[in-house]
């Protein structure tokens, strides 16, 4: 009765080679392109054809279309088709692995003569909004100034903070009502001497500005068409596609934008005639539909749905699916935070015991295995410059299930055997699964683990409270651009400890704080990447406030008629800009 019902799982121990390739890929940092690199049109995708309509299956509807409000992965992905910014990432290879930052609407990635305090951009000729009006420096000014208005509250805040030279939300004082009450940013902050030129003035050097401006959240908004809050539903777009119809929560249709000129764009293509996007497609549903590969789904894809954990190993092992499946890294790094504000956690031997004892295999397993998660060494992941694949402070690469003997010895030395350890876990199916197995691993080392469930909707609110009751809890963080300057300062700057802030472990180390200030002023991206990695090593070996668990990966599938399918490392998913229909 019980024979032949199911075959065993596949043995996956073949990741070594892949890891090495990833490491090599990351050796080359992303460079800033000059005017020649920024001149369109984009190099043609081999074999690409024009025409046809593509079905897009998405789980989450787009809550925001106003560029200033876009900060969520799904919205950032569709923004690749809709919006353009001053700069952007150009894929310089056909596999989505190599990139450079180039001028998108601007002629180059930006010029600075004083180490990053003053940045000058010049707009290209012949660039227009979807309604036909030309894009001028007035629109750029409007785009920047409206970010200070109260209704813009979802997007990134780097540029605003740099212009106002403050941290936190204090930047809004610079221009409390945005540009809508007749006030503007002074020329000492943002100057637009003519229709083509934009100059940013910062008090301190910000060598990362070209990366920052490439974020979808800083795409250009039309000054004439700015309808404030209503812009979120009816934006005047700039990219190769425009919105024909949008029924929130149901569907969206994108059609070609006739006012987009390929000659001005070195990043995007316009092969497909229309994209029919359907929402509310769960991961399992979209995976099954695209696996079936019938009817309209043959030309089907999902921009942001991954293959669900249950189907993952089957999808990856099927040789017939090889041409329809792409995988790659997402920018997220999972980490177990050790709450430094707890008196019980002040002893470094206790923290080291946690670090050595904690098994990370449960976490990897819960999300679908090494196809979905790669066991992490350090805090800087493979999508960020400076990633060191050989860094393994707690021996997790060799012993991913933890080292209870070593942890037990450390805990014994500290005289804290059988100490109570409150473990706050997110109450999802995955969270329950990995937390029970992690607790079993910690118990072996001599901890009295108390698991506490936290509802998934309020998880991050709960763990970012200053007086939360948890000794350890797991969070993940994604870099906003491939520099650790979007990882280290928000997570480990001790001066940013506050209710709701992202310094979850509440670490406040004077050396870390001063290093953050020092590295932030280094203008050479290669040098600063190396310095950030040094700080990563200091944190994990001397401070021990985190245990890195895994680098997130994603696998996506498309129908058999979809061409140009590539996993783009910068987007962290399928690159929608180069798709065509076979």
């Amino acid at each position, binding site marked *: *009765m*019980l*024979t*032949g*019902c*199911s*075959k*065993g*799982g*596949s*043995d*996956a121990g073949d990741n070594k080679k892949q890891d090495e390739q990833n490491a090599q890929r990351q050796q080359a940092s992303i460079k800033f392109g000059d005017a020649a690199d920024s001149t369109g049109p984009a190099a043609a995708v081999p074999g690409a054809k024009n025409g046809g309509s593509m079905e897009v299956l998405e789980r989450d509807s787009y809550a925001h279309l106003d560029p200033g409000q876009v900060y969520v992965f799904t919205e950032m992905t569709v923004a690749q088709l809709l919006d353009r910014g001053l700069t952007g990432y150009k894929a310089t290879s056909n596999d989505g692995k190599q990139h450079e930052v180039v001028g998108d609407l601007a002629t180059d990635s930006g010029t600075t003569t004083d180490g990053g305090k003053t940045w000058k951009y010049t707009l290209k000729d012949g660039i227009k909004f979807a309604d036909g009006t030309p894009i001028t420096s007035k629109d750029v000014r409007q785009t920047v100034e409206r970010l200070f208005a109260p209704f813009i509250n979802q997007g990134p805040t780097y540029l605003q903070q740099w212009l106002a030279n403050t941290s936190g939300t204090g930047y809004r004082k610079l221009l409390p009502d945005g540009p809508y009450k007749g006030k503007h940013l002074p020329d000492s902050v943002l100057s637009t001497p003519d229709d083509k030129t934009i100059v940013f003035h910062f008090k301190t050097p910000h060598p990362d500005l070209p990366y920052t401006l490439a974020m979808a959240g800083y795409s250009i908004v039309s000054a004439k068409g700015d309808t404030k809050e209503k812009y979120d539903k009816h934006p005047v777009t700039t990219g190769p596609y425009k919105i024909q119809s949008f029924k929130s929560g149901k569907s969206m249709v994108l059609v070609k934008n006739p006012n987009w000129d390929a000659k001005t764009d070195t990043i995007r293509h316009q092969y497909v005639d229309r994209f029919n996007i359907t929402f509310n497609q769960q991961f*399992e549903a979209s995976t099954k539909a695209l696996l079936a590969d019938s009817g309209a789904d043959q030309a089907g894809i999902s921009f942001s749905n991954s293959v*669900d*954990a*249950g*189907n*993952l*190993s*089957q999808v990856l092992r099927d040789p017939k699916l090889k041409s329809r499946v792409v995988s790659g890294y997402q920018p997220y790094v999972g980490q177990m935070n050790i709450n430094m504000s707890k008196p019980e956690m002040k002893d470094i031997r206790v923290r080291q015991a946690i670090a050595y004892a904690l*098994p990370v*295999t*449960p976490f*990897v*397993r*819960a999300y*679908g*295995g*090494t*196809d*979905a998660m790669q066991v992490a060494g350090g805090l800087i992941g493979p999508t960020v410059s400076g990633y060191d694949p050989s860094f393994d402070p707690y021996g997790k690469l060799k012993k991913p*299930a*933890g080292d209870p003997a070593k942890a037990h010895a450390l805990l014994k030395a500290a005289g804290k055997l059988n100490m*109570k350890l*409150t473990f706050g876990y997110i109450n999802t*199916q995955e969270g*329950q*699964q990995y937390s*029970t*197995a992690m607790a*079993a*691993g910690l118990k072996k080392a001599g901890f009295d*683990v*108390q*698991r*506490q*469930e936290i509802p998934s909707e309020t998880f991050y609110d709960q763990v970012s409270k200053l007086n939360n*009751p948890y000794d350890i809890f797991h969070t993940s963080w994604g870099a906003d651009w491939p520099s650790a300057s979007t990882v280290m300062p928000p997570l480990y700057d001790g001066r940013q400890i506050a209710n709701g802030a992202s310094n979850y472990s509440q670490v406040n180390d004077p050396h870390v704080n001063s290093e953050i200030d020092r590295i932030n002023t280094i203008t050479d991206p290669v040098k600063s990447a190396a310095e950030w990695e040094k700080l990563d090593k200091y944190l994990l070996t001397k401070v021990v406030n985190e245990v890195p668990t895994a680098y997130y990966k994603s696998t996506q599938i498309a129908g058999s008629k979809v061409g140009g399918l590539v996993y783009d490392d910068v987007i962290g998913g399928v690159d929608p800009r180069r798709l065509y229909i076979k």
Partner: protein
Amino acid sequence: MGGGGTAVVSGEPGPKATGEAALTGRSPGQLMWTRFKRDRTGVISAYVVGFFFLIGLLAPLISKVYGKNPYTVYADERPDLFDSAGVPVHPNGGISGQFWFGLEPGNGYDVFTKLIYGIRTSLMISVAVTVAVVVTGILLGVAAGYLGGKTDYFIGRVIDFLLAFPAQLFFIASMPVVVSLFVSPRDETPTYVRVLALIIVQWFLGWMGLGRILRGTALALREREFIEAAKVSGASPWRIIRKEILPNIVTPLLVQSTYLLPNFVTAEAGLSYLGVGIVEPTPDWGQMFSKASTELVMQNDITYMFFPGISMIVFVVAFNLLGDSVRDAFDPKTAR
């Protein structure tokens, strides 16, 4: 579910009435026992049910002999047996001489010990609920039936009110609330609290059916001559209920509880399936179903589903057949 309408009072008022000269006297219990022994289905079912209870009772002993426990995370202890997603590498869910029923996809618990401990948890909870329900049903049902009047009216309306509750929804909504009543914020919710909460919640909405049946029985008995006689001889109501009525409601009581118990087993499993009952790592029958329904198991290890599935089907069917046989034995006049 099932088994209603058995509240027929059997003809014999008591053993005293059968004392004729040459015939050997047999109590209703003995009569029932001889009738039950003749029913082959009933006897087999009884053995099966007994087997399950035995397994539940002896689970710690069995697993000691077997050398494993349901809490060991074999995916970390024996990584050679699993792929990185926690699916057993060997076919049929990793069944081997060492792991008789294979290993659970995910954290890799041993399925055999998990199942027997799961049976233990589920049966323990269900027996406790059944006992609580029977006691409550007797107390309130008999009191309502025998005392009548205002007491009857009041208990009757409470029963109506509780019957109108959507039980399943109430369970789901009230379980977390009941659990949070007991637990301090720094500690893990202990398993006994969840068990207690499950018992309380199921008991609260489980006793009304039995209570009503017993009320009807007591109402009919109240008018019988032997009760009148007891009353005339000056017995107190408490003595009458204890000595005259209780022995006469044993039949519906036994029949009803054999139907109730498997219902509580499935209800408890349902709650754990929905994630509001017993949670990992405590082994539980229903929670094994919940694991079996995940896409990971569906796509990679269907075998796993057979163990909790088949064992529960066998148990519930056997218990229901046993209930039928007990009813037939007590009450051969009921047409089927």
